[in-house]
């Protein structure tokens, strides 16, 4: 007699179907109603601007379930007047093990206290390893990493993974008791 071997893998949660499930039609309708209910609820919340829609609108919306210690994106801190705190000293670019930071410095003779500033500040996220050395080395607390991921989807593939100065300066700080912002004025 030919031995029939069922080679299908057995799963721990293999469904056991009763006659109601096997009848198929009512269960399918139940499935439709669950999907449709969630869809309609999300739709209503989205239309009315209510909170708690299950879909996060990436990349405009930050996901709520990032880990507390997630450091996914660099930001440049700003002086009270909105200019970057960065002095373009290139220490972050020098220490970076992946060499992804590139800074073009400019000279501002009108501000003798901060004559050097970054004209361009570029980070290549295709090579960044998120080690945080740049944050650690910065003498001005000008670069930090925050609980976000960069908005990388862009129409341009060639340069899409680079984040520039404008993007890095969009950070609108909320509250951080460990690192108050804007930083307190040091002794002159």
């Amino acid at each position, binding site marked *: 007699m030919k031995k029939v071997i069922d080679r299908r893998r057995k799963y721990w949660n293999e469904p056991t179907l009763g006659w109601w499930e096997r009848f198929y039609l009512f269960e399918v309708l139940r499935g439709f109603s669950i999907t449709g209910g969630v869809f309609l609820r999300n739709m209503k919340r989205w239309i009315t601007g209510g909170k708690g829609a299950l879909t996060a609108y990436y990349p405009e919306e930050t996901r709520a379930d990032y880990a507390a210690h997630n450091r996914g994106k660099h930001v440049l801190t700003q002086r009270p007047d909105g200019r970057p705190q960065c*002095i*373009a*000293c*290139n*220490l972050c670019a*020098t220490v970076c093990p992946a*060499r992804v930071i*590139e800074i*073009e*410095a*400019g*000279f501002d*003779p009108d501000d*003798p206290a901060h*004559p*050097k500033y970054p004209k*361009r500040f*570029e980070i*290549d996220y295709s090579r960044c390893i998120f080690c945080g050395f740049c944050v650690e080395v910065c*003498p*001005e607390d000008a670069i930090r990493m925050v609980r976000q991921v960069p908005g990388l989807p862009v129409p341009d593939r060639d*340069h899409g993974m*680079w984040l520039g100065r404008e993007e890095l300066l969009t950070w609108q700080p909320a509250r951080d008791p460990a690192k108050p912002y804007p930083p307190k004025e040091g002794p*002159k």
Partner: protein
Amino acid sequence: MTAIFINGQPVETGEHTTVLQAALANGFYIPHFCWHPALSIVGNCRVCVVEQEGRGVGIACNMPISDGMRVLTDSDPVRAQRKAMLQFILLNHPVDCGICDKAGECALQDYHYEYNGEPAISGDPKLPSTKFFPLSERILLDNERCILCSRCVRFTREISKSNVLGLEHRGDSMLVRPAEGRTLDDDPYSDNVVDICPVGALLSRSFLYQSRVWYLEPTPSVCPGCARGCTVQLWHRKAEWRVKGLDERHNTRIHRVTPLENPRVNGPWICNKGRDLPELLDRPRATQALQKGETVSLMQAIEAARGLLDQAGKRVALVSSWGSNEELRAFRNSLGDYFTSFVKPDHLPLEGEVVEDDLLIRADKNPNTRAGQDLLGAGVVQIPEDTDLILVWGEGTDFGTLPRGAKILFLGSWLLPENGHADVFIPISIQTERRGHYTNFEGVVSAFEPCQPRRDGVIDAETLFPLLSAPGGSASGGGAA
């Protein structure tokens, strides 16, 4: 010949007269700010202290050698005094290394790490001073960073002899300032003070915040600005620090030019024209071969040039005085028999430029006139009216002055209106794209190395000349010498 003992080891002092010179020449390093081998001794920075056994400490730069003297360069009193001296020098120094262009090659930074390494003892606030005082169109002075070593002052007094800089006031309000009514613009050697400044007080405007120095590396080269042929270093970005997101030109650009010390030619100095070499080399390049203004491929242009060479009866060559020794020799070997050759000046003195002085600058503004004239004769340019073909190699020739009937074969590197007026134009490489040698007016030969990739579409003149005379055309009769 006197023998002294440095750290217990006997040292032959040779022709040296001070302990500092003898120590440096024999491999004992003594830190120094104000002492410079080409300048007089002032002894005002006081960090070169050494201990003369049994006689206490003193400054090595001004300590004359006496036979059998015993000197210690790293004893406890020396270390203590050096440390105190560095604390004193840093009293009003802002320590803004993060935004200082000198950081990475700064003597104060190095000595601080090597010999002091401690935060300031003083709790007093640092005295503010002038930032970015314009000494000239080319140089800014940051008085906060200045440690008053007076090297720049002595340079303008003893080397360039312009006497522009001086020190005014006393104590911690002392400032380096130009003499009344004068600026460093009067000094054609002014940029040397940026190099000799041991800290970042004197800043070159053209290099200001362009790059951190550790991203750059020097390539030895020769300044083509005049017949002196000063050896220089061209600083360009290291390959491992290539930028990918910023402008690609940062990778190949020459960021700055510094002298390459060469006692037989220029000593440790170069003039400001040499510093402006990047501007000269950054001019728009010609990379397209042309035949009567029409674009053709490089090989077509070379074929056409050989055709011109074949047809012509009377040929004259205006040879570039910017060609290297190798190129000039290739020209003589391959084409010397076909042409009556004259070495022409590619560049004449510009308006307002110092034409000649008794330090470095020479009246002939071309690097290799001497080698060309040695090979091809020093005749004055004379083009007979019935010339059939004129080979113009290098810029600086007005085609309007050439005989009307003659065909023109033009070899040039720059995008000039003349290129289209030549019968055949072949783009050739520039100095930073090839290696070679120049012979200066005294006959000293200096080498230069390439530091930029050769542009697509251009050919080295050294490669081109044998191609022009290669067998195949009927002009092959004379052949290479």
